[in-house]
């Protein structure tokens, strides 16, 4: 069992997913250990309470366990795929919960530096660097652009709902989303250059 786990730890996410699809719990456990923290953090960021975040995260990972064969490496990383599942589950929860507004405050700039110390692999270090770049990129966005992105991605609001909330034409909301994403993307590209 120990050897099996050690072997799984040496594999990339994309190599683990076919094993997960084959119902290999060791491979699945490694995927959880790599991404469970980010998944739970995202769920908590969206739903705003720990018990629900726990439930959402568990649902998302069970979904991955039961649909691992559907991962398509040609369409993005395992982490992005998994986090998109968490996000969908969390937004589903928000939409099903009547009368309670989602938590909408954006993360503060020092957020990731407060992360509890874990094993610092190269991949983790790279991820932290990328996250720092992103925070910088978001920090540079005009508030009107960051707000619509925040409301859509973390709040689960449609562009028409955001237009109503902010008293703006729908075209303006969509335009701000585009400008904001383009700026973030541009900053990321510069950071990687």
């Amino acid at each position, binding site marked *: 069992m120990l050897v099996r786990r050690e072997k799984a730890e040496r594999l990339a996410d994309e190599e683990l997913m076919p094993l997960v699809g084959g119902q290999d719990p060791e491979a699945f456990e490694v995927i959880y250990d790599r991404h469970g923290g980010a998944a739970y953090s995202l769920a908590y*960021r969206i739903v705003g309470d720990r018990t629900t975040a726990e439930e959402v995260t568990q649902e998302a990972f069970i979904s991955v366990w039961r649909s691992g064969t559907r991962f398509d490496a040609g369409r993005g990383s395992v982490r992005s795929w998994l986090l998109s599942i968490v996000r969908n589950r969390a937004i589903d929860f928000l939409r099903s919960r009547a009368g309670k507004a989602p938590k909408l405050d954006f993360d503060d700039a020092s957020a*990731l530096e407060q992360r509890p110390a874990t094993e610092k692999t190269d991949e983790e270090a790279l991820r932290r660097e990328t996250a720092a770049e992103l925070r910088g990129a978001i920090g540079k966005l005009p508030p009107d652009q960051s707000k619509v992105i925040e409301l859509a991605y973390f709040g689960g609001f449609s562009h028409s709902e955001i237009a109503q909330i902010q008293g703006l034409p729908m075209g303006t909301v*969509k335009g701000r989303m585009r400008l904001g*994403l383009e700026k973030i993307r541009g900053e990321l590209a510069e950071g990687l250059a």
Partner: protein
Amino acid sequence: MSTADHNRWSDDLAAYLLGALKPDEAKVLERHLEECEHCRQEIRWLEPAVHALPEAVERQEAPRRLRESLMAEVRAEVRGAAAAPAPAARKRRWLLKPAMGFAVLALLVAGIVGYEVGRDGDGGSNRGSTIERRVEGLTVKMTQEGDGGKLELVGVGKLPPGKVLEAWVEREGQVEAVPALFVPDRDGHAETTIADMGGVKTVMVTEEPQGGSEAPTGEPIMTMSVPG
């Protein structure tokens, strides 16, 4: 296509990537993407910006019990306990409320199973614990297996990007999601397992985003009543 047209689509692409388009708007855009390489390139360019958003979230330490609970469930399934009912936490049910606005709910509440063509004497067959019917161009086979059942669909077309199939069962006036999401293989065959068929009156299947949904987000691709 003019520059102005592309600017309009560009605005939609950003909203699409952020999950901010309504389902019908997203479908229109997905149809456009199938034929527009320019927009597909723009999606590929912008996508990392959206994927990076969750990475900036303040990190929370996941409770140890989450990992323990998750792995316990996974290992139980491996040991063959998959037939046991799913834990209550994932068996959220939603009441049939017309105010929810789902067309599918209206179908169920009214008892109008308009999609079903496999009624007795209409090409369907019941062989012991197996029901096989033609429903909207699909062959649907439901096989009772102990307390549960296996739902098989034949003739399912290729799903849009990012979509999976999710089955739903209706019993006692409530609709529940079937936990096991599924997709068709290259031959258009798709199947899923329903752990508990007790009291189920209707089974239906919808296309949902990856990871599934808590409530159907669109019209079912098939709806079939289950004989009592």
